[in-house]
């Protein structure tokens, strides 16, 4: 009886020590789920999800505070990926957070720009260059199309321009012709 107790206690101690060691040795910094969710999000940093950036939204999803259908730039495909990752049901994009739009970039009308720097401060990815009372311009390849610079502009000189297809970015069409029920 006593030997059995001792053996069990011994095993418990050994396993406990091993687990304790493993918990320290293989500790994962940060939340890997947040990283995974963040990797799916489009990194537009537009805040349409009502969080200040993609990472905060990813954290909110991981905590269960936010739903997976609040990201318009990610679109339906993004929602599907999130649903797959989190084992949830797919749901259509929530309308209150916006609609999916074709990818665009901001364009500053340089004739109208007064050089107020408000758009520079609003840009989440530092894609606008310029200085006070100097003309500003958008560095196109860096622009995520978040539209955050549109509202602060006092002279409304920023417009969103859809990125045209070029020979480099042109894609072959999906060969399947979808059949739709006619009305």
């Amino acid at each position, binding site marked *: 009886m006593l030997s059995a107790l001792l053996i069990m206690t011994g095993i418990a101690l050994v396993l406990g020590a091993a687990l304790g060691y493993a918990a320290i040795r293989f500790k994962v910094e940060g939340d890997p789920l947040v990283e995974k969710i963040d990797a799916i999000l*489009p*990194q537009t940093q537009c805040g349409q999800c009502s969080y200040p950036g993609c*990472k905060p939204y990813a954290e909110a999803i991981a905590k269960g505070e936010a739903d997976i259908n609040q990201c318009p730039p990610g679109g339906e495909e993004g929602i599907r990926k999130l649903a797959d990752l989190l084992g949830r049901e797919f749901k259509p994009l929530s309308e209150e957070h916006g609609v999916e739009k074709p990818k665009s970039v901001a364009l500053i009308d340089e004739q109208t720009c007064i050089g107020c720097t408000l758009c520079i401060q609003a840009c989440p990815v530092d894609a606008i260059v310029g200085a006070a009372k100097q003309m500003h311009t958008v560095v196109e390849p860096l622009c995520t199309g978040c539209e955050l610079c549109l509202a602060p502009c006092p002279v409304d000189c920023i417009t969103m321009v859809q990125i045209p297809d*070029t*020979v480099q970015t*042109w*894609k*072959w069409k999906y*060969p*399947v012709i979808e059949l739709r029920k006619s009305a």
Partner: protein
Amino acid sequence: MIARLFNFHGGVKPDAHKNESANAPIQPAPMPSRLVVPLRQSTRATARCIVSPGQHVLKGERIGDPEGTLGTAVHAPTSGTVVEFGLHPLAHPSGLNTRCVVIEPDGEDRWVERHPFDYHTATREQALAQLRDCGIVGLGGATFPSHVKLGRGSGIDTLILNGAECEPWITCDDRLMRERAADILAGASILRELIGARRLVVGIEDNKPEAIAAMQAAAGGIEGDVAVVAVPSLYPAGGEKQLIRVLTGVEIPYGKLGAEFGVQCFNVGTAHAVYRALAHGEPLISRVLTLTGNVSRPGNYEVLIGTPISHLLALCAPKPDTDRTLMGGPMMGFALPRLDVPVVKGTNCIISASPTLFPPPQPEQPCIRCGECARACPAELQPFELYWFSRALNFGKAQEYNLFDCIECGCCSYVCPSHIPLVDYYRFAKSEIWAREREKSAADQARDRFEFRNYRQEREKEEKAAKLAAKAAETRAKMADKGAAEEAPANADADPKKALIAAALARAKAQKEAAPVRNTEALSPETEKEIAEIDARRIKAALIDPATPAGDTPSERSPESTS
């Protein structure tokens, strides 16, 4: 000499249709009224325009500078005037525009000064730079820059010259080998020297006996180990990996290049262009292409780059029932979305298609899992799996099944009993995967920049706070120095802000006391008198209390009193 030939997996035997144009000698195509030269001569790099409208250029004068590692120069195909630099449609399935230089020929066709390049005395780098500056790209269709392909100067044992021309209908390489065998082999021996290969093997499909004979006759004049080998006619024997397999038995695994196995492959047309570039200093401004299909006069023409396709079609006179025009062969080519597009360096064939010659595709039926496509696939893939994954948009899985090993040869679609356009699915999946990769790298960049911006804002905030704290500490230290112990040090400890305000007040008071009003000292009698008068007026106007000394309340002076 090659001891034996090997087989590659799969392959198909479509009707060759070579006889239509194979007996027509290469003729120069007449000069069009306008040449539209795209600065993008491959899908990888666009040259930078260095001419402006109105400028006169000579034949072979450079109009585009190479940009990037994969860039090659672009030259004026004839002498004339640059009339425009703008966007024009490209011969591409998308029909999208690209930057082009439009040249109006002056009819003189006057060459720029040409100098033969002595590659024996020059270094390898100089020779490769000469090829880049002459705009030499692979003329087999992929238009990969030759100087990059030659980049590795060591470790290559065998140079293969690709004269297989396995696609049906095309005869431009066949004619080139028949008529210019010596030039091709001279170019090949230059390539062999530049790449440091020991032997040279020319692979030609056995349905071109005249070309084989011509090349064999010319091979006698070339030093070293040269072999001209007839390979069995089986589509796609002209695929790079397939030809390497047939001639050397080397099977190139996934993601590797022939160069890693000591084999490098060049098209015969490229060898010819290399010869012209080095031996004569002529840039690549024209190429041989086949006009065939449903036409009255099929033929092979030496065509200037930038010649509109519609101009060429007038030469071969398509029959009335022609319904579309293909660029490239019927297996790998594509239907041109429009006919005003120019010939580019990769254009080897223009086929006029009619419903009788090229019946419209039959309706696609469900896959019956017969496995015919896997038997035909020369890349030894599982086309049906790739088809399912591509159709289901499961691109990750398609990549796991080595979608990018697919050479888009069209064998699978050719044999499919359900008439599934399999290659369309693979092209779609590949372009989607590329687009996703571009998006992903853009997203990664945006994430980095966003995180850096947040970090920067945080840092700026901290720096500001630190500066303020330092200033506060300095003031407090000064206060302590001044022996302001009686000014409630206990209070200062309890509320540093209040202490600061108190200190500031005390400082202001002290300053006021220390600095008396200067303009009331040492006054002259006149000024004193004046002041007294002014004060009297003020008292009269009841503006100030007579007890207040003059000069102490300058801010209280009303405008009336000063006037």
